[in-house]
């Protein structure tokens, strides 16, 4: 007998730089494009989400404190890792959403990282300003990371849709807790493997797979999450989610054009400094 046993992958969560099962031990079945069983995915609980926010908070300061140039190198490294695993990513996207457009989706996702890698050390020049004021002051405005961003990834575009929200948030120096597409979570975990082998510090990106109606309300009401990207929030729950997010005055971020510097500043705060001019 020379038949090899199949080596099937157990898809897990990506929290604090580790691939872990849900603390609840739960998983759920995911269907492929034709409706048949594809694979199981970990079903994150609110405690997994809490742990993810703790992991993100721990590293948010040091990630934001890296030089913008250095962050750009890290983002470019993600593109390198994805390029190296291109075939695998195409397979994952095809298995989840069908083969049509899969390779284009992967290519655009890789290019998206390259695009935002270039923006890290330019965003401040382009969107910052030296403001004219009536007084002996230098008045400077510059963007700063908000802190921890909760992202609810879109349901379709399992890879590209997610990357188009994640990359600008990282470009702005934030740490991210992301609820993946519930219907197609597996490409996100394949992406996590690329992030893990690039130089993104553990805890900067945390990917949770599971039921959005379980995760999103907790993410929205969490006091230590500073902004919420609602790209993947179902329209019928949007009002409740935004009301919960108001409890600690979270910024609500809605997706704009697919690529652009203002997608980055959406995840940043403008700080203005008044500095006295010399006598």
């Amino acid at each position, binding site marked *: 007998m020379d038949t090899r046993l199949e080596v099937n992958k157990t898809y897990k969560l990506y929290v604090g730089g580790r691939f872990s099962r849900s603390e609840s031990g739960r998983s759920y079945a995911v269907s492929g494009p034709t409706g048949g069983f594809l694979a199981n995915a970990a079903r994150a609980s609110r405690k997994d989400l*809490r742990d993810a*926010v703790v992991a993100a*908070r721990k590293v948010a300061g040091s990630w934001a404190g890296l030089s913008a140039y250095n962050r750009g190198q890290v983002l470019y490294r993600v593109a390198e890792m994805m390029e190296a695993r291109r075939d695998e990513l195409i397979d994952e996207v095809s298995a989840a959403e069908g083969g049509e457009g899969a390779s284009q989706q992967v290519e655009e996702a890789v290019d998206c990282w390259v695009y935002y890698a270039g923006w890290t050390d330019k965003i401040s020049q382009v969107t910052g300003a030296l403001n004219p004021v009536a007084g002996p002051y230098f008045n400077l405005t510059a963007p700063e990371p908000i802190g921890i961003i909760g992202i609810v990834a879109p349901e379709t575009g399992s890879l590209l849709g997610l990357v188009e929200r994640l990359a600008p948030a990282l470009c702005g120096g934030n740490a991210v807790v992301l609820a993946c597409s519930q219907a197609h979570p597996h490409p996100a975990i394949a992406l996590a493997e690329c992030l893990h082998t690039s130089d993104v510090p553990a805890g900067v990106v945390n990917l949770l797979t599971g039921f959005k109606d379980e995760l999103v309300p*907790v993410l929205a*009401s*969490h*006091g*230590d999450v500073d902004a919420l990207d609602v790209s993947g929030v179902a329209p019928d729950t949007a009002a409740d989610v935004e009301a*919960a997010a108001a*409890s*600690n005055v979270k910024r609500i971020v809605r997706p704009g054009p697919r690529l652009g510097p203002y997608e980055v500043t959406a995840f940043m705060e403008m700080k203005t400094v008044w500095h006295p001019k010399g006598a």
Partner: protein
Amino acid sequence: MTASTNDVEVVHRIGGSVDEVGAEARAAMLASRSLKAEAKLWGLDLAVRCCDLTTLEGADSPASVRQLASKAMRPAPLDHSIPHVAALCIYPRLVPAAVEALKGSAVAVASVATAFPSGQSALELRVAEIERAHAEGASEIDSVISRGALLAGDDTGVYEEVVAAKKACGDAHLKVILETGELGSYDRVRRASLIAMAAGADFIKTSTGKIAPAATLPVALVMAEAIRDFADFSGRRVGLKVAGGIRSAKDALRYLVLVHETLGTEWLTPERFRIGASSLLNDLLMQMDKQRSKTYSDSDRYTVA
């Protein structure tokens, strides 16, 4: 032959040894218990009341102690339902500042003493340090034992130094720190616990917090069992203090479960159980808020210190 309970002989009469694998398995089993809803809230409240808020840094000053004292008296300034902690634990030099800051409150002043954390100075100096701290107003003394003497097999020497410490304490409570991280085996932890209790300790305490490993669940279990055996033998109920490395509310609740299961409800009070910690308090407050509001909070909402 009848041995009085104040005799090092008691240690050998109670005797016993520890099943290492069994102790660790039981501690792990107790750690897996989960508390829900009201029980959890009650446990968190108890953990606050049992907390010895501690600062033992070279940089401590009267001002930083005053700041911590206000935290001890009112952990959450805007929430009057939060109780005060049991004691403020500090270095001897800062006792006057702490006594002054805590005047009129029910928070006790606990001073470490006896050449904390190593205990490596002459016995008369260590005794003098206790007397001075007590004279300046400390009502609880956290003393350390000579681990070197215990490891060398000098049980009587350790017994006698605890007796001397207890005498120097007067009416203050004596907590005896075993520094279990340096003892090397659970059997020695049990022996040290029994020696300290026989010599008159009011509390036995796991660690100084300056050595890793500090408090662990199996060590606390071994000490709690020694306390139980000593109470059965002598009728005297000695308290347990766990200290070092306890930073999360979850850890604190695990110790409460362990104490309850080993010693019973009589020990679930600040008179017989303490947790020595600094950063734990804010996590307890955060988890209490979580239980009440059902949403996760952030650390910016709690006072520093």
